[in-house]
């Protein structure tokens, strides 16, 4: 027999009161904490989000404080997370319509966000940012068509980080700017031979997508065409991988199991372990390499083809204004301050790469010390070797970076030939780009 309970007629039952109270408690703050951009004290409240770690947090807070001092009517709230988490969060915020006024974006995501009209055009209108202090070619990296959707917030360039202490001990000279890939081969084999096979000359660059980009640029080919397709063929990739395989097989480049660890960051990679004497990386990572390594490290430009290094001024990150920001003018002022003002440069230090504004960069470089000075000097010397900055990579670039690692593993572990692997890469990469 089933009991049939009907709705209780008693109006003030304790449990029902509890249920109502719970609902009310949930609904109350609805009115209590209204939307955050209200300005009870007459101040404009901006939000600014970026990625990084605690040390960058300190630097960024200091730069924001300097901005608030100059603009007492603006209050900036900052939020940050680490890179992967930040990008997930930003994607959700943008889809849900709640991103910060000023957002730091990765170059790889720029075209994707620009195409969905979430980034304000900073070349005209209320959110105009003066970028005349920047190298025009470098500033153009933030352009999508004619719109300036982002302003670079730090410059980096490709380099080879070399362990000078180890080379001195082995009696191998440090490579010089203008060296070729053949020189690299000789150098790396020397290191391997003189260290008794303990140290490879270089960490195998075959899994590094941007290393392949420079390899192509040296041969006059772009990684991507202007409309976001590949600027190279299967044979170009097979050529790169064949070269790397030669290096690896002779012991000049690291073995597969060591090469794999490159993704975990400077502290755990072959250079820090003493298993390689040189490694491809961006110069903005140099400080981290120094922190992870007891030896003296120096920066050397990439090996060349007909004098071309294939290096270029790359934005390590960019600043954008959210298209739905309620305060585009103030947001643009913050962006301008962060990329051109010397007070911002002082506060930010080198935690994001070279400062965008050229005049301020020079002042900063002149007074730099330690690892910062090495990077500043390297960039100053490398300036004449740089190719033009290509336009922002198409959507899917981040996936290609991991695809490159995965497919090259097949080659370096000896499961596939460079030819077969490059065919397989082109096929999978094509699908990613078409999405």
């Amino acid at each position, binding site marked *: 027999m089933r009991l049939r*309970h009907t709705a209780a007629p008693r109006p003030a039952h304790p449990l029902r009161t509890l249920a109502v109270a*719970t609902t009310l408690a949930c609904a109350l703050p609805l009115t209590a904490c209204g939307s955050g951009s209200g300005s009870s004290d007459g101040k404009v409240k901006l939000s600014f*989000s970026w990625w990084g770690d605690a*040390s960058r947090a300190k630097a960024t807070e200091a730069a924001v404080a300097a901005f608030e001092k100059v603009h007492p009517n603006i209050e900036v709230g900052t939020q940050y*997370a680490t890179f992967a988490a930040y990008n997930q969060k930003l994607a*959700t915020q943008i889809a849900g319509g709640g991103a910060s006024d000023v957002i730091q974006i990765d170059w790889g995501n720029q075209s994707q966000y620009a195409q969905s009209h979430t980034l304000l055009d900073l070349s005209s209108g209320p959110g105009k940012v003066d970028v005349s202090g920047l190298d025009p070619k470098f500033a153009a990296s933030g352009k999508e068509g004619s719109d300036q959707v982002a302003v670079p917030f730090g410059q980096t360039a490709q380099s080879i980080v070399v362990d000078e202490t180890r080379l001195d001990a082995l009696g191998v000279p440090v490579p010089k700017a203008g060296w070729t890939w053949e020189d690299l081969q000789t150098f790396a084999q020397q290191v391997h031979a003189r260290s008794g096979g303990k140290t490879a000359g270089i960490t195998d660059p075959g899994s590094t997508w941007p290393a392949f980009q420079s390899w192509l640029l040296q041969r006059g080919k772009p990684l991507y065409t202007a409309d976001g397709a590949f600027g190279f063929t299967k044979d170009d990739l097979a050529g790169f991988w064949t070269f790397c395989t030669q290096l690896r097989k002779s012991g000049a480049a690291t073995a597969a199991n060591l090469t794999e660890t490159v993704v975990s960051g400077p502290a755990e990679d072959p250079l820090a372990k003493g298993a390689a004497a040189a490694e491809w990386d961006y110069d903005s990572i140099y400080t981290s390499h120094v922190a992870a390594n007891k030896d003296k490290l120096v920066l050397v430009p990439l090996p060349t083809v007909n004098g071309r290094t294939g290096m270029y001024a790359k934005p390590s990150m960019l600043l954008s204004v959210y298209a739905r920001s309620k305060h585009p003018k103030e947001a643009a002022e913050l962006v301008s301050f962060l990329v051109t003002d010397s007070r911002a440069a002082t506060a930010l230090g080198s935690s994001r790469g070279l400062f965008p504004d050229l005049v301020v960069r020079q002042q900063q470089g002149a007074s730099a010390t330690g690892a910062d000075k090495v990077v500043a000097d390297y960039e100053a010397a490398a300036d004449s070797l740089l190719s033009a900055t290509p336009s922002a990579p198409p959507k899917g670039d981040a996936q290609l970076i991991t695809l490159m690692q995965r497919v090259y593993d097949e080659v370096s572990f000896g499961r596939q030939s460079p030819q077969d692997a490059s065919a397989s890469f082109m096929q999978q990469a094509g699908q990613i780009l078409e999405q």
Partner: protein
Amino acid sequence: MSEPTPRAAPAPAAFAPPSGRRTRTVLWHLLVAAVLVVVLYPVIWMLGTSFKPATEIVTSDRPWPLHWTSHNFPDGWHADPGVTFGRFFANSLTVSALAVAGTLVSCSLAAYAFSRLEFRGRSVMFAAMVATILLPYHVLIVPQYAIFKKLGWINTDLPLVAPKFLATEAFFIFLMVQFMRGIPREIDEAARLDGCGPYRTFLFVVLPLTRPALITSAIFSFLWTWNDFFTQLVYLNDTDKFTVPIGLSLFVDQTGMTSYGPMMAMSVLALLPVFLFFLAFQRLLVDGATSSGLKG
């Protein structure tokens, strides 16, 4: 959770030589110990690493430190500018405690309705409720974010806590419904004859008998909220509102040095509440299972 100790069938001593049995027991224990070491290795590594100096972490493979240091704990505690890890712990505890309370109150009410009351559309609603378990979280996050944004709840604990009070955790409802269905209806009937309405029947009869399910839900609700990273990451913006999982993630820097020592030290601390919570409640769980009052 008890360690399996296989016993040979109780045979008279004369038939089973004690030395053979002992060898087997010893072998079995060795095997269990070996498996335990493998399973616990990451925890041991984490504990050891939390006492290692920074230089030793990447250079040595040994799980315990050569040179002991306790620096990682204060370093991790004060790693972020302007806020200590204590704040993250307080925030995590608040969110987790409220989530547990909300889940228990709302899910038990909902489960009672589904298992005992008859109302129009019950089976359809029950099916819909169960179907929400199947929805992947990433499908829900964007519309949810848009709703909470409209409500002005972003950067507060409300998006993390308020839904728990509205019985949105279908899994726990399902668990409790299944449990309540196992409670004989005769007990309700007896209560009804004694003059209990549906509310009192719930509060004084069904709820106490559901204790094991409530405790299971409390444990899982606590663990899931304590360990949840993505929801908390998306809804909390200010550093002083961050919870432990977000605080821990700040140690991982993609481009630079990951501060493993402080991160492991804080991870050890982050595990403590979970461990204690489980320790406190699993006794109740066993207790509840054996004393549910369902005697013939």
